């Protein structure tokens, strides 16, 4: 057999099939069978007939939306300042804002909780607030990088043109700068929204289990060995991710967001 360069990819493709694609089919199988292995829609019906399940999903949506909005509100001006040569010329400064991403996530999250408790914001009594703070702490670095890189690429002459044509700062910001940075905003939002929905350790640590996000909920059922129901919820999560990827692709050509590259 003659050597073809394509053959080099076979181990990778085999790995993808065995450990990424086939496992998804296992989840689908478990989601639509009962403990005895017989086909059933019971898990699906059980999910939507019990308001507790649906409420967990809705509450997770609220936290995910709030987290995305707060991270963007803090991160957007920050990225603007970092990308502006008058205020910042140092690339080390940019890295400092991204660096918390690389300090162990469990240490960071529990440090946030311990410090909040120390300064008197008790995680038991203010679970909602402390969970929110923990989420923002954790996801802020992820919005800064995509926003910063789109702002660097921004066409400055359009901003000057807008000013020359008589637009004030306010109008220029909303009609010129925001639309130009939309791909960055969308990719930043996708890096926060879905991960918040599926996050499972942050809310556990920061709310003493008072706030249960969808990720924690899936984990809960799975740990009680109810694989079938756990798999159904994982499948719902996967569908939600699919929908969000579809929506973000419509808005932005940048397929992979800022996470594929380290710098």
């Amino acid at each position, binding site marked *: 057999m003659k050597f073809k*360069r*394509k*053959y*080099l*990819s*076979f*181990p*990778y*493709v085999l790995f*993808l099939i065995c*450990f*990424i694609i086939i*496992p*998804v089919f*296992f*989840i689908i199988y478990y989601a639509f069978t009962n403990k005895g292995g017989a086909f059933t829609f019971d898990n699906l019906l059980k999910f939507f007939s019990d308001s507790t399940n649906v409420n967990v999903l809705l509450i997770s949506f609220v936290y995910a939306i709030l987290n995305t909005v707060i991270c963007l509100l*803090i991160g957007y001006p*920050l990225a603007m*300042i970092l990308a502006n040569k008058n*205020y910042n010329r140092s*690339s*080390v*400064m940019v890295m400092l*804002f991204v*660096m*918390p991403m*690389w*300090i*162990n*996530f*469990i*240490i*960071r999250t*529990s*440090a946030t909780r*311990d*410090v909040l408790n120390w300064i008197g914001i008790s995680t038991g009594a203010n679970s909602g607030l402390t969970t929110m703070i923990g989420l923002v702490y954790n996801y*802020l670095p992820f919005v800064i990088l995509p926003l910063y890189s789109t702002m660097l690429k921004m066409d400055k002459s359009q901003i000057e043109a807008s000013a020359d044509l008589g637009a004030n700062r306010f109008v220029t910001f909303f009609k010129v700068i925001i639309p130009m940075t939309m791909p960055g905003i969308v990719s930043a939002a996708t890096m926060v929204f*879905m*991960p918040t929905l*599926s996050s499972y*350790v942050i809310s*556990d*640590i920061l709310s003493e289990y008072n706030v249960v996000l969808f*990720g924690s909920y*899936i*984990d809960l059922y*799975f740990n009680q060995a109810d*694989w079938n129901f756990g798999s159904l919820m*994982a499948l719902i*999560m*996967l569908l939600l*991710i699919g929908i969000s990827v579809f929506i973000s692709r419509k808005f932005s050509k940048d*397929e*992979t967001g800022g*996470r*594929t*590259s*380290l*710098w």
Partner: protein
Amino acid sequence: MVKRPNTRKIVAKSYLYLILFLMYLPILVLIVFSFTKSVELGVWTGFSLQLYKDLFANDSLMKAIGNTVLIAFVSAVVSTLLGTMGAVGTFYARRRYKKAVETATQLPVVNAEIVMALSLAVLFKSLNLSYTFWTLLIGHVVLTVAFVYLNVKPKLVQMDASIYEAALDLGATPWYALFKVVLPEILPGIFSGFLLSITLSLDDFVITQYLKEPSFETISTYIQKIVVKHPIPPEVRALSTILFLVVLGAVIAITVYNNKKATKVATMRRK
């Protein structure tokens, strides 16, 4: 009016430093109180290096640190090999094949970690496999391999496509051409994919928690088990200081290296 740009600059800079301060506050508190003996966070009982001694005397934590580094390194090496070969092979394949592989590659990038962890756990359980180092390794490779692929691919696209054929025309064997001609071109992508794999694996909790052997602890799982019920153990403050310094050193080194490379390219262009 003359003063206004200055005020804007002060406001902008203050905002920058305020957010930076808040972002690092929790970790800074840990660092400061790692230099005192007090068990309780926020109580200063005089300077001491006792917690650092305690850290190195804590065998299970030291073992967890070793395990974390081991799995990160091994999984990064495996991912780098698989991902690089995958990217090179797919790059030279037909369009339909390429499209299928690339779609599948996106799955672990966008997927939630808990879904990946759960789906692998279901797979292993169905096959009646018990959790070992190998199941954990597979989990970490699933987590990281797509990122290697995505870091190598742009380098292949940027590469001059004819150099491989040129090498063959000049008498090189396909292997020789791949190693001596293609590999040097894509090396920076392989390297950044490797680094990204390491960082993703070091930081991982969810996949590790689901797929590890029960007795095998990493830094994340070891600390999580304690902090769900208790404050951070005092010696972990010392560990945080060390981790912080290591990450800071790496970040500065890489940024400076990248800047130097950028200036070098710029001066070469000017010549």
